[in-house]
């Protein structure tokens, strides 16, 4: 199939950037979207032009590296699918395809379609963990966890941290991403002791990073390649109110000895 691509090209974080039109010819409909870009890149290089930079790694929809806004939708038109698992059979020959990076103040563009998502890491570092030293915790089966709780925690834990939720949101809110971790850990008995300080610290970090708040439009859920439900945002909000009302958590120092 033949396609006309309109791709965001930006030399570095200081460059203004612009859309560039590139023809992609003879693409197999069985190729993945990223393999289509590989083919385009091979041709660009043969013609002495720099290839399009884009993040990718596992190409199995699990590492969360790929991050393309395709025709205005994060990860493109297929529901519950990352850019790397999107295949060209979802498009028609002759189609125009617009490819842009995630757009959010907290995700500055580094080059072309590559953005800096380290803000996500910093939110997790603020509180997205259970404080347990490596050593000899009790036997894994000593605390039974009801299957429905374990399953629900798992549904949240599948988040791949790609940032599509932020890219889809008019407020650039990371609440779906954050709530996935808060929800997972608050549903499990092991996560309960730190539930208050965790949610307060993560929300605090979110504000510092320049992300927006949630105004319940659910664009995030629609864009999420792992189909994470906004019910986790509701749970996070409950966790937050609970924690805020009881706030006596010391701000400084996580997980002392």
């Amino acid at each position, binding site marked *: 199939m033949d396609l006309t691509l309109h791709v965001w090209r930006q030399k570095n974080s200081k460059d203004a950037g612009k859309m560039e039109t590139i023809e992609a010819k003879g693409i197999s409909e069985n190729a*993945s979207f990223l393999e289509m870009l590989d083919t385009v890149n*091979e041709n660009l290089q043969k013609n002495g032009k720099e290839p399009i930079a884009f993040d990718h790694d596992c190409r199995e929809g699990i*590492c969360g590296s790929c991050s393309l806004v395709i025709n205005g939708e994060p990860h493109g038109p297929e529901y519950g699918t990352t850019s790397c698992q999107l295949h060209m059979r979802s498009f028609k020959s002759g189609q125009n395809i617009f490819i842009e990076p995630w757009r959010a103040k907290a995700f500055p563009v580094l080059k072309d379609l590559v953005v800096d998502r380290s803000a996500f890491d910093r939110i997790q570092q603020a509180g997205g963990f259970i404080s347990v030293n490596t050593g000899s915790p009790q036997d894994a089966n000593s605390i*039974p966890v009801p299957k429905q709780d374990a399953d629900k925690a798992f549904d949240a834990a599948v988040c791949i941290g790609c940032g599509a939720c932020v890219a889809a949101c008019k407020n650039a809110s990371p609440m779906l991403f954050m709530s996935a971790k808060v929800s997972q850990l608050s549903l499990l008995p092991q996560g309960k002791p730190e539930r208050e300080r965790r949610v307060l610290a993560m929300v605090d970090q979110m504000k510092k990073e320049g992300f927006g708040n949630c105004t319940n439009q659910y664009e995030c859920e629609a864009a999420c390649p792992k189909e994470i439900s906004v019910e986790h945002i509701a749970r996070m909000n409950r966790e937050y109110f609970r924690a805020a009302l009881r706030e006596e958590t010391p701000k400084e120092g996580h997980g002392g000895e």
Partner: protein
Amino acid sequence: MNLDSKIPSGPLEGKWEKHKFDMKLVNPANRRKYDVIVVGSGLAGSSAAATLGGLGYNVKCFCFQDSPRRAHSIAAQGGINAAKNYQGDGDSVRRLFYDTIKGGDFRAREANVHRLAEVSRNIIDQCVAQGVPFARDYGGLLDNRSFGGAQVSRTFYARGQTGQQLLLGAYSALNREINRGSVKMYPRTEMLELVMVDGKARGIVVRNLVTGEISSHAAHAVILATGGYGNVFFLSTNAKGCNVTATWRAHKKGAGFANPCYTQIHPTCIPVSGDYQSKLTLMSESLRNDGRVWVPKNKGDTRPAHQIPEEERDYYLERKYPSFGNLAPRDIASRSAKEACDAGLGVGPGGLGVYLDFADSIKRVGEDGIKKKYGNLFHMYQKITAENPYKTPMRIYPAVHYTMGGLWVDYNLMSNIPGLFVLGEANFSDHGANRLGASALMQGLADGYFVIPYTLPNYFAGEKFDKVTAENAAFKEAENEVRSRTKAFLSIKGSRTVDSFHRELGKIMWDKCGMERDKAGLEEALVKIPKLRDEFWQSVKVLGDGESLNQSLEKAGRVADFLEFGELMCRDALHREESCGGHFRTEHQTEDGEAKRNDEQFCYVGVWEHKGMGQKSAVHKEPLVFENVKLATRSYK
């Protein structure tokens, strides 16, 4: 080359306990005086960095991905083995040990494997405490399933994404330490040289992949947890970024490379569909719990699967290996698939595929039952192939998946370079010539959580360290090497892209050093690879500059190393005149086509020493001593 394995004396069951007591400690107040570099943030790297940081050492952790959470451990699907015997089906540490030694075709160290089986139990406890949501049954207790090469159910899992959940557990532990300031994380940073001072590993030179800045980091020890080298084949189930660079750079500085020819070809992957293909996708081994592998009995049978009657199907694994059936180990299942396809019985385009059929299981437990267990895998299969595996059988074919070879390490996981430790897939130690399913996650976490935190302090406490900073001449020299290499790639300005060389190398490796090898083919590869390497250095085309994000430049460095490494792999495969596990030399097989070991001559670890470019590498031998198991012909019949 000094290859003292430092295996503790005494009975097998007591070696690790005894060794833990014999090893020296570093007191808590002194730990902050030691700097540790961890390269790689997968299961082994993250767990090591988090644990060492937690103990009080100053840790710096490096990864080339934009976040440590994206390391390729994330993609592991099926599960993690542990000898918990929660199912009461006869499992024990001894049995996991024996299954692993046998699965590895008697080419692994007894003592290492026994330790792995021992600490496997602690891993599950640790992960559950971190909030890893393993599958549970209705009583709230942990569920298990079976994997290849075992007759017990000892595999813990989190749907089809166990690696993701375990890595996110280790990532959260790492985040806690970053928050506490004990670990400093360097994402989008690639290690390009190992630096040695007075014969010890004392640091690394890295390139910031965003700014292109080259910098040095000094430490008292360097830990490589940089994964395997499967991408030497270009097409593999590895992530696109996986590479051999860190271990290869260390090898060129003197670290022995052990058994590079031991590669694992995974039997159940989605077949290649075209020459645009950039990678292959694994379908978890766990599927073989419920799927049955078959091909048509008659050559050239092009009827769709559902029209082929039962009596005209050959369920060849069940036929050849009745006691293990579809759960025969990976090397055996892969070679059987190749055999069937070579005999003209393959299915799908090009005849390079066999069926993995769930019809019987769907009849038994319904589509919903299958969906609950494997939903994400079926979904992924459908995305890639546009076929519905609930209705028609999956088509699968073997693909490169894991590499058992790696840098040589002793029982303490230290290479022959003092202060250079190697963990996880990057080392060679625990899987022999074939790794069993669900054992990679086990080994990565065992090394990081439960071995290195004991053996590293022992090294520190036993050594005297001169003060070494990144200003030391050795670092400046290594930095200059890196700079001139970068410059070389950019100044060739040839006509061929990096990927075109990588694909060509991959094809040579797959054809001549893949599922089957023979002398003539390997010798041919040993002529072709150096030629291709020369061509690479004359006509590779890398655009852009070195002072910014440049993905072609990153790839060029990795492919240049693969072009050197591939040669060593073939050399190792050529020298090992026997078949064992994933290394199958067609000259050495039994009458019914099984691997034929030569224990008299090859019961050793082959460790290669780099002698300089243009010089032939030399092989050294660490004999493998079996005191607790009897060397036997592996049988799964």
